[in-house]
């Protein structure tokens, strides 16, 4: 039997959140954390969380497992269980709607702020815009982001300034478009980022790198943005 301690909060019935202990029979198997959550939900249908693809590509089930953010569907219980106990909490730093479901509004707002879409003011050719494999390779490690928010919600700078600091996920996408040879809005993009909060609240703590379930490195991308700002201004 696995001991699971889960964060519970239903705004209609609970004055404040509490931790609930439940026992789960995993059948001796090393299940994924999401499987354990499904088992809990089969017993107690009021337990709320998000899930979709269950294979680590949709980014729905970012949760805090025994203190570390990650995707429940691709994290084996053995990786996060401590003394036969698994502690499940919502992603930190965002308002909780219910149980493990957080309000991602601020996270998405920061993503939108970087205008995460290709901007090109030249007329499109009849076929695709050409791009060399080397130039395309610059997007590797950037475009794979699944917007699960594990990084941004593990970043202290984002905890304090989620309304002003774009956060690692948004900045990774900002750089994804800065690095794209097909994008012509580099100057405008950089101008919008050159303030004391948007980029420069990153203090290089690297929690984002530590938790990214896709193995991406937002800190490095932020470094690249800073260098672009620097070479543009000096």
């Amino acid at each position, binding site marked *: 039997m696995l001991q699971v301690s889960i964060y519970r909060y*239903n*705004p*209609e*019935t609970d004055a404040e959140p509490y931790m609930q202990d439940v026992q789960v029979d995993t059948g001796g198997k090393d299940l994924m954390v999401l499987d354990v959550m499904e088992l809990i*939900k*089969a017993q107690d*249908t*009021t337990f*709320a*969380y*998000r*899930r*979709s*693809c*269950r*294979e*680590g*590509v*949709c*980014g*729905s089930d970012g949760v805090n497992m025994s203190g570390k953010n990650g995707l429940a569907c*691709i994290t084996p219980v053995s990786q996060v269980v401590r003394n036969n106990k698994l502690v499940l909490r919502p992603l930190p730093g965002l308002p909780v*709607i*219910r*149980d493990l*479901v957080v*309000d*991602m509004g601020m996270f*998405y707002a920061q993503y*939108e702020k970087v*205008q*995460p*879409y*290709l901007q*090109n003011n030249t007329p*499109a050719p*009849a*076929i*695709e*815009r*050409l*791009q*060399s*494999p080397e*130039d*395309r390779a610059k*997007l590797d490690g950037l*475009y*794979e982001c*699944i*917007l699960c928010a594990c990084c941004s919600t593990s970043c202290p700078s984002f905890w304090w300034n989620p309304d002003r600091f774009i956060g690692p996920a948004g900045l990774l996408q900002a750089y994804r*478009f800065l690095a*794209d040879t*097909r*994008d012509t809005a580099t100057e405008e993009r950089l101008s919008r980022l050159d303030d004391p909060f948007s980029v420069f609240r990153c203090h290089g703590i690297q929690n984002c790198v530590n938790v990214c379930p896709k193995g991406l490195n937002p800190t490095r991308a932020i470094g690249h943005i800073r260098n672009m700002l620097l070479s543009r201004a000096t």
Partner: protein
Amino acid sequence: MASLRTLSFDGVIVGGGGAGMRAALQLAQSGYKTAVISKVFPTRSHTVSAQGGITCAIASDDPNDDWRWHMYDTVKGSDYIGDQDAIEYMCSVGPEAVFELEHMGLPFSRTEAGRIYQRPFGGQSKNFGEGGQAARTCAAADRTGHALLHTLYQGNMKNQTVFFNEWYATDLVKNQDGAVVGVIAICMETGETVYIKSKATVFATGGAGRIYASTTNAHINTGDGIGMALRAGFPVQDIEMWQFHPTGIHGAGVLVTEGCRGEGGYLINKDGERFMERYAPNAKDLAGRDVVARSMVLEIIAGRGCGPEGDHVFLKLDHLGEDVLESRLPGICELSRTFAHADPVKEPVPVVPTCHYMMGGIPTNVHGQALTIDASGKDSVIPGLYACGEVACVSVHGANRLGGNSLLDLVVFGRASGLHIERALREGIDLRDASESDLEQAMSRLDKVNNSTGGENVAALRKELQNTMQNHFGVFRNGEFMQEGIAKLADLRGRIEGARLDDKSQAYNTARIEALELHNLFEVAEATAITAEERKESRGAHARDDFEERDDENWLCHSLYFPTDKRVGKRAVNFEPKTVDTFQPKKRTY
């Protein structure tokens, strides 16, 4: 119903996957008031899981490639019940739709010439099957669906589409004339129920792979659109046609792209034999998915399966080398290590045919307009209702879909729906408002669920349904066994309709959503079961032990399932493409 808030739009799209967002983009660009209702944040839709690519004759790999060759492959792949006018439209418009995606920013992999990288996929040929294997699937590594979905979301953001994220559509609203005038939807965060009124309602709700116990599909693929259409009394077409993907990871069901075999991987049995050489001497591992899946099951039945239970086969990739695997198939390496505990660089991946795609769906024309059959047996358009993507049956996939054609289907027909609605709105759409009783009718199921008292547990019922479908309507089917399955489903109907909802709260009540989803799963399952039993032949993905041959005399046609009397009718397949000669049915070999 006075308390029901109404929100009005020119066009409402139900579903935020690839098809829905492509349709929304088209409408938003035209300036019409457009909304997308999605039960998950759009980038969590199942399109995100598509791996291998989007098949399209853009003539990058082969400068002489021709969309007609792609059309030939698709018609053949469909086992000749794909509509040739629709396939012609998809294959010819495809390149334009793919280039639009690239211009929008989709990060396709590239060739040395800087063009979009294309890889070989199953069922592809050059020169109408005479010129050997083609490489026609445009790819962004093995994350094409992810790249496509995010690009479309970004495009919609740029064009300021209104999103109702984490809103769940429960039922269609029909007016007195039988026209669709919107949907009832629940805001999951607050629990508020709203009537979303629209001049055009587009269903882009995706598939329903969760009717099977073993599926590559996401938890959210519960056939909501099919369920709503059937409850509204509209028919569904070819719903018995379910694709089992040859390579789902054994045990987990997670998909391993056909691109693995496109890049040179192949299947082996427990003796290490490359058994597809026996079943499909020419195309081998790149035969149609239905052919490969059946061959795998036959190997397993013959006792040549791998593992202690002999219940799967292996996909061998290690000979491709680490460089190719890490650059072309990085996502697969990740998934295999996580879910199969096998590193493809060193060892083969255990795989088994797994439910993957619903070829059938709401019948539509090439403009995405949903169809039904009038009293005289002719096609008639359902006013106000459109469908595109997996939920629709245009039909371009017929009895078996080719790999890479689903992404093409959803962008081409998402776009076509948007274009048609734009035109219709410009010409003026005039539908009578829904009356109080129309709304009451649409609300009745939700009201019943909200007031449920006794009944059984939703999760247990869902499991029972999935096991029934898995056991009775799998890769190989048999009349007697299917009838048993149908009887089990008949028993399940009442129990599922009366399922218990313990949690009546408003805020983010996922129990309520799951109960409503279960109804939809059941509708899809029942339609599948009854139609599968009725189609007395083997064609494409529908393989029967008791009718092993294709029967063109009686069944070279679409099946149509009518929910009100649970009747299966027939509808003619289109054999009249506009610019090319008809592809006549031939024996299908690879």
